[in-house]
């Protein structure tokens, strides 16, 4: 882990009109980390992510590679960070390969068009996530799990180190959820940095080097997964009962009815 953070957020406040969403966030992301952002609906997770991507205005308090985000264009940000949104409807029926090639657009000049190399990089990215056989299928006809993999392949084709994911397993079936987490784990071993929001404390235990918990627009815990995720925190943030059990030396978070 390097000393200087990739992304540094200091005392960040943000409000949609009069509704305060973030009330003083301090947060850093270092190269090689897998950070899971936990918290109930409306706690400000997605807002924080959108601010880091400069999709919302608040960049004064955010630094990327030591430079204020205000000085970055979207093209420059795309040279550092890839965003993997939740899979969604696309109005035109692009093929899978075309979707992945779109990840290369920030590498092109204004008038340049995608070259053979861009298509090769896109194909390789599809291979990496294991869906090369879907290359020519229309994106809209894929299952949720396949779509999420295509969006991940697009981020790989972008050739950057930091991946920001918004609730990556949302809407996937149980098998695809776990497969996607495994893939994130194996990409992290190759050196990719992840910042992902999640609704599942158990998933945070499965794949993260650090867990950040947000509640009511503030960060209330930040540290190693095993230290941060415990019954009291779950009770406080989500208002339910859960136990942390150990299985094969790994911690698991299991909800229990009382």
């Amino acid at each position, binding site marked *: 882990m390097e000393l200087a953070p990739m992304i540094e957020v200091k005392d960040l406040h943000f409000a949609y009109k009069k509704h305060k969403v973030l009330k003083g966030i301090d947060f850093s992301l270092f190269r090689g980390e897998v950070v899971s952002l936990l918290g109930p609906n409306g706690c400000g997770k997605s807002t924080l992510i959108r601010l880091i991507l400069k*999709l919302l205005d608040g960049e004064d308090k955010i630094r990327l590679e030591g430079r204020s985000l205000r000085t970055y264009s*979207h093209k420059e940000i795309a040279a550092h960070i890839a965003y993997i949104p939740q899979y969604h409807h696309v109005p*035109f*029926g692009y*093929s899978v390969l*075309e979707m992945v090639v*779109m990840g290369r657009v*920030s590498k092109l000049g204004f008038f340049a*068009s995608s070259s053979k190399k861009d298509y090769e990089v896109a194909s390789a990215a599809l291979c990496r996530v294991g869906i090369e056989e879907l290359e020519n299928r229309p994106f809209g006809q894929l299952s949720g799990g396949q779509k999420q993999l295509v969006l991940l392949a697009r981020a790989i084709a972008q050739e950057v180190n930091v991946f920001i994911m918004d609730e990556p397993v949302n809407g996937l079936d149980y098998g695809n959820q776990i497969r996607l987490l495994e893939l994130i784990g194996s990409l992290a071993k190759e050196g990719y940095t992840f910042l992902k929001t999640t609704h599942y404390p158990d998933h945070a235990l499965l794949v993260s080097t650090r867990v950040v918990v947000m509640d009511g627009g503030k960060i209330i815990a930040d540290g190693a997964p095993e230290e941060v995720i415990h019954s009291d925190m779950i009770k406080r943030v989500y208002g339910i009962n859960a136990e942390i059990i150990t299985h094969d030396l790994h911690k698991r978070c299991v909800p229990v009815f009382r």
Partner: protein
Amino acid sequence: MVGKERRYILAGVVILGFFALFSLLWGQYPISLELLGVYLQHLLFDTPADPSCNMELIHNIITEIRLPRILLAILIGAALATSGAVFQAMFVNPLVSPGILGVLAGASFGAACGMLLSENWLVVQVMAFVFGFIAVGFAVLVGSMVTNSRSTVMLVLGGVISGSLFTSLLSVVKYVADPYSTLPAIVYWLMGSLSMAQLNEVLLVAVPILMSIAGMVFMSKYFDLLSLGDEEAKALGVNVGLIRIIAIVLATLASSLAVVMAGIIGWVGLIIPHIIRMAIGPSHKLLVPLSAIVGGTFLLAADAVSRLALSVEIPIGILTSLIGIPIFIIVLKNARAAWN
């Protein structure tokens, strides 16, 4: 993939060339291929012409009548179809076109005002563009008044309202226009006609039209990204606001100039992109340049029909509607597969 794009575009250009040659030779005074060869030799190498064939007549037919008309048909078809493809991408809405967004109505109102106010050609062009742009703006404004999100139906409704507004305003202009000179000029021009084409005028308007088409073609790789939604496009590194405004200005400019030159020619901007999407796919890198080529070919063919089908010439705007409506119904039937 990259080679495939080149092949499609080459094939399109060859087909366009065939249609252009056909239109050059065929007409009330047919010219044979041989005669064209003799004429070209005469023109280029100044070879003495056979006195039996009237070189001066052929020269006049080609340069005064057919060539300007062919060039204008290609330019306008290309301008309308490309603008249609770009509007559909910009508003992430497969149902919009220059006609549906009210651009054609706005531009025709602007151009009619221009004709009323001034004899100057440039005034007419600028007025057409300004009011074409106002019409799109108005359509978008009305479309976003009810819902903040970009709704397909609301934008179409906004366009219908904007189109009606400018059609009504156009009626006002017609009402006050001189019934013996200006009014008939406006009415005939609005029906859509390529027959008034003069070579120097065509070449003059070709420059801005070709420049805006070229601009849209060069920007086409961004249109795929914009159709994913603004946030995703920004995260992928696209300057969304800048691309959107440039694209809308270029599409409005091209379609307004088409209106100035030939009146209201509907449906081309709506159906051509749909046909290409159904046949080849939705990627704008291919859709935008092919729309230009296929749009040009379509209007050239429609113009040939309008000249040759009956003994009198059918106004081209009426013909494109008559051809466009059944095609669009077929397209709608297959639309879901092509959009999704």
